């Protein structure tokens, strides 16, 4: 099993979720994060003083999936989240040892 973590532009969230639904992903977890990268931040102003705000709002999506599904998931996210402009974000994939569904106690791929 794998866990796919994607950091994307916030307004792409709905599109990505819909795309994942379409390929059969039934669950995911979303976190509001802030990102720092090549995309330059912005400045906030307060009475003539500028504050550089280098962290930009992003959304992190976490999807646990079976190892054979992982490529499909990554491709889907990449396609749906792409605008082609700097700051589109990253997708990271890591290995998962276990997954458990709390309600039923089912585990691993049955739990997803």
């Amino acid at each position, binding site marked *: 099993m794998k866990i796919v973590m994607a950091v994307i532009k916030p307004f792409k969230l709905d599109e990505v979720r819909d795309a994942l639904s379409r390929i059969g992903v039934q669950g995911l977890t979303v976190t509001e994060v802030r990102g720092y990268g090549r995309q330059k931040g912005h400045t*906030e*102003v*307060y*009475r*003539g*003083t*500028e*504050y550089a*705000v280098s962290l930009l709002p992003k959304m992190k999506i976490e999807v646990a999936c079976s190892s054979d599904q992982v490529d499909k998931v990554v491709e889907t996210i990449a396609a749906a989240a792409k605008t082609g402009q700097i700051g589109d974000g990253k997708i990271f994939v890591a290995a998962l040892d276990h997954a458990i569904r709390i309600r039923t106690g089912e585990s691993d791929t049955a739990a997803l």
Partner: protein
Amino acid sequence: MRSRKIYGLVGLAVSLMLALALALPAFNSSYAQGQTAPAGNATSAPAPAAAAPAAPAAVAAPQACDGVKVTENCTPNSGDTAWMLTSMAIVLMMTIPGLALFYGGMVRKKNVGDTVMTSFAITCLVSILWFFFTYSIAFRGGTPLIGGLDRAFLQNIVSNTFKAGVAQNIGTPNSLAPTIPETVYSMFQLTFAIITAALITGSIAERMKFSAMLWFIGLWTIFVYSPVAHWVWGPDGIFNSANPDAKFHVLDFAGGTVVHVNSGTAGLMAALMLGKRKDIGPPHNMVLTMIGASLLWVGWFGFNAGSAVSAGMQAGMAMAVTHIATATAGFTWMLVEWFVRGKPTVIGICSGAVAGLVAITPASGFVGPVGAFCIGVAAGIICYWGCTGLKRFFGYDDALDAFGVHALGGAAGAILTGVFAVEAYGGTAGAIEGNVGQILTQCVGVATVFVYDVVVTLIILKIVDLTIGLRVSEDVERGGLDLALHGETVQ
């Protein structure tokens, strides 16, 4: 530190109890007022003199209070009283929740509770002191420098000579407000004392101990606000333009000098004594600031038009010039910021509006609509510079710009009053009508208040610093004052 805190608390509580003890005689003189002086009554108040206390219906109709000269034991003008009751309420609204939110929106989220509580606690504290004696020393006759104690604990505030005045709608007004009950005038002026004290705290935001703030503000109200108010507005004050014996006839309709130069200067002193904040950041919620600025604007009609202490032509003109200057200054600040920084900000237009309100304050009974427009443009530009160029140049950390907006705006307004005053409106001509000397008089007023304020404020701050300490620890500052000092957080 804990023990210091206890000392502070004990100090506060003891002061309160002491005051209560002192209040007891006043209590007597207050419920028994007039009982001991039927004779004085008879001589001084012709109309209701024959009034038998037991037969109020048979009383001769009491005299109506007169706007030109003070009438003893008269019936207040209901229209003027209605407006002044309203004015008091909306000037209170300027501080709570107005100023509390204006300031609260500009600090970081971790300090918003402390910031708003500061305004609220000052409202309570200054009110208690006012009731004790600061009203009396500020607004009663005495000497040109300080008033007397004859209204301590508001004793005899209905009338020195007549019993049962409240029930019969009869009383003797304060000579400064001849057509309304003195209770109303006292409460109206209290709201000025409150906001002046609360304005100072813009400079000290995000780093001063709450207990130190209370002591500082309490002492400042007694030793700075009360005398300065007496100088400019006291019936025998040395700067009172309506006092024929005054040394200088300074024009200050609603408090450019007394309120704004005074508070802004004290704020700067406090900011210098405290030093810079460890970490700074952008305002956490400009919507709160917008609410605050709006309520300041709305309430300021009570402040300026209320300073006419009547509901007539003067209040009307004060309302008009206040509104024009404010709108102009807000728009001007926005345009300046837009040019210089490329973006018009919410905090900017709100600050500009407040700058306009500040600058028109001393002028509001003396200038006309066009003068107000000019003052508005000037306020928008000058105060923008005060919060940016000037502050950067000297490098002090006037957190929320009490100095940049209030001292600078107040001084600019005071001086421009000397320029744009129109005799037909307020009785005194300004430079534009040929009376160039008025500008000088205005400068004398501003400078005297500035110097006195600097000296006494520094002494008070030093004393508070040596006894309980002015500043919170670095940990508290970094973690936020809300949690550490008040055990509360905004979610």
